[in-house]
């Protein structure tokens, strides 16, 4: 049975490849694997770090997720811990912007977030995959309540300015019609005997049966207007009760139009491992995690501390830093060990006496451009007018995504949505604008999808990650070549210094990368401490 399955699935894969069905996803998965993006978290449980000599000290640089996890665990194990943080708040990229918050970007422009109470955007990470066990376990430990984050919404839009006259299509429609037409095509091909050399007669029967199911084909294996297809793509008139309630089926789009629209490009987004149901978000904003750590570690974190040099000797590590609230005054912190979670974009500029191999590794990782824009509207028109509750609309406009809040469903009053989430060339372009220009552009482009923007928009905030003073970029982008050459050197303990953060993980840009790299690094520091105590 298993063998049969295996044989069939090999053939099926070949078949699907032949018609190009999985090419997009496969290529994407491959690309993502090479980035480490599709790897599962290695987190098992919190580390056991007992037994270090009393008073052993660790200085942690950076109070982002990596630094906070390390501080939490090391303190638990009895280490003497101190954390230096550049910002005036804990969390780093774990961060929510809410009404009353201020953000001054590089170049000096300050935004005052005016969102109404309870409304926010997460400029950094915004979703937690169910298999990111590490970050989820800290949410539980710290009492950070979670709620479901909606990734796939069949009623959200797929939009191209160049397809269907620029009219956005429901995800449901494109998904049903793409699958329906592909299934019909493959069924025809099968029935014409063109697969006889590759699929046995018996398996062909199974294949046809599965295509009917998968593609919502009718009894003649055709994808046509009718109840079967409308149950996927939606009705022209939905069924109801009473005399005026007879459902009217809808007419599928043509195969040519669906293919030519390229709207299928984003159908698989929710099937990527990291985006598969169920995803979570902290109630009140992603920043709740950093804030909870901050409360838990109160007194351990020195804020407004800008690290200016990291120097180790045989006995410990000395770090000089400047208090950014009274510039010009240099302070020194010293500990037996140092866990440095400063992003490589910044660390590569600091004097630090580590091996040439680690120095080269620190300098080998460019940082990605990314922009997020939050927009407040007078009402939740996406819910009231368009029945879109959470999820993401994808567009080929420069804003790339519109994401609807996965919280406060069906409430009256104002709402904040993510009006742009951009990578690549357009992210550079938006970063190069003033915050005001970014917001205006996001509103202009978004109006092409939701005409209500013009009337309902109130104000927004826009974060271009290369203008973030505390990261100078979004995340460390490892090329395969750089990873081969430098990654291990980056993660080795060098004397009394170890590095951690998403940049020291195979889960780049994910908080889980920060968690697992921190736990891995402090575990290895602890082994050295124990070995040193025994020697």
């Amino acid at each position, binding site marked *: 049975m298993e063998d049969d399955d295996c044989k069939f699935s090999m053939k099926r894969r070949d078949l699907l490849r032949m018609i190009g069905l999985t090419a997009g996803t496969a290529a994407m998965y491959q*690309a*993502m694997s090479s*980035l480490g993006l599709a790897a599962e978290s290695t987190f098992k449980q919190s580390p056991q770090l007992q037994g270090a000599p009393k008073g052993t000290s660790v200085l942690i640089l950076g109070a982002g997720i990596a630094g906070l996890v390390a501080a939490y665990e090391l303190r638990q194990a009895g280490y003497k811990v101190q954390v230096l943080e*550049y910002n005036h708040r804990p969390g780093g990229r774990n961060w929510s912007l809410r009404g009353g918050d201020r953000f001054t970007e*590089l*170049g*000096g422009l300050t935004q005052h977030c005016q969102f109404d109470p309870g409304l926010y955007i997460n400029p950094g990470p915004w979703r937690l995959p169910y298999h990111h066990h590490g970050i989820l376990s800290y949410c539980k430990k710290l009492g950070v309540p979670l709620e479901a984050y909606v990734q796939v919404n069949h009623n959200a839009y797929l939009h191209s300015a160049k397809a269907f006259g620029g009219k956005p299509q429901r995800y449901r429609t494109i998904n049903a019609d793409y699958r329906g037409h592909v299934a019909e095509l493959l069924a025809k091909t099968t029935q014409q005997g063109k697969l006889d050399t590759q699929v046995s007669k018996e398996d062909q029967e199974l294949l046809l049966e599965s295509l009917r199911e998968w593609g919502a084909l009718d009894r003649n294996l055709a994808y046509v207007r009718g109840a079967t297809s409308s149950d996927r793509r939606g009705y022209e008139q939905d069924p109801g009760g009473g005399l005026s309630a007879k459902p009217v089926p809808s007419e599928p789009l043509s195969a040519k139009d669906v293919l030519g629209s390229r709207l299928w490009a984003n159908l698989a987004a929710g099937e990527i491992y990291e985006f598969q149901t169920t995803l979570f978000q902290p109630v009140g904003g992603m920043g709740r995690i950093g804030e909870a750590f901050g409360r838990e570690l109160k007194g351990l974190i020195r804020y407004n501390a*800008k*690290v200016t040099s990291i120097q180790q000797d045989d006995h410990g590590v000395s770090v000089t830093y400047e208090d950014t609230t009274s510039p010009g005054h240099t302070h020194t912190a010293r500990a037996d060990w140092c866990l440095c979670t*400063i992003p*490589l*974009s*910044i660390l*590569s*500029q*600091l004097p630090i006496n580590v091996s040439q191999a680690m120095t080269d590794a620190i*300098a080998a*990782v*460019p*940082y*990605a*451009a*990314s922009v997020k824009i939050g927009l407040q509207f007078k009402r939740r028109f996406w819910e009231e007018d368009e029945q879109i509750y959470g999820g993401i609309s994808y567009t080929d406009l*420069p804003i790339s995504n519109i994401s609807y809040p996965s919280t406060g469903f069906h409430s009256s009053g104002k709402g904040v949505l993510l009006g742009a989430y951009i*990578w*690549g*060339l*357009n*992210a*550079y*372009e*938006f*970063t*190069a*604008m003033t915050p005001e*220009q970014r917001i*205006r*552009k996001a509103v*202009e482009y978004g109006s092409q999808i939701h005409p209500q923007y013009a009337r309902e928009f109130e104000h927004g905030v826009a974060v*271009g990650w*290369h*203008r*973030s*003073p*505390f*990261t*100078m*970029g979004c995340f460390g*982008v490892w*090329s*395969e*070549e750089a990873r081969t050459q430098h990654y291990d050197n980056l993660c080795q303990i060098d004397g009394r210094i170890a590095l951690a953060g998403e940049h020291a993980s195979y889960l780049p840009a994910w908080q889980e990368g920060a968690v697992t790299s921190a736990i891995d690094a402090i575990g290895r520091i602890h082994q050295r401490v124990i070995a040193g105590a025994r020697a």
Partner: protein
Amino acid sequence: MSGKTNKIRRWMLCGAFLWCCLAHAQSSDNASYSRATFSSANGETVFRSICQGCHMPDAKGAKGAGSYPALTGNPRLASPSYMAAVILNGRRDMPSFAPKAVKDRFLDDATLTDEQIAEVINYIRSHFGNQYDNRISAQEVASMHR
């Protein structure tokens, strides 16, 4: 739409000098480039669309937890080939803007042609108070690809 009308109104109200400043400061405001259309952007547009995101509209750089170098009064600008090498290969956190053999989802659509690299270098070296006479050509940039 209303942005456009506003701009026109402002242009009409402002004197010639102010008009120049405004047009200059806002020339990065046409963010509608795709990879295909961006390859025709000239040196100034490349600076306004990409470089100034970090190096700032006045090319004076910025300081936070780390810093972005100024592209004015910076002795390293004396060598246009140094600048070309940095743009082609990247440097530390700065990504490479050369076309990539292996596509990267996050970096690969922001690439510059050799002409654009030469143009943006020549633009920077003759603006923002920089007054270098020698220019770099696209051919010279082309010869520097690794």
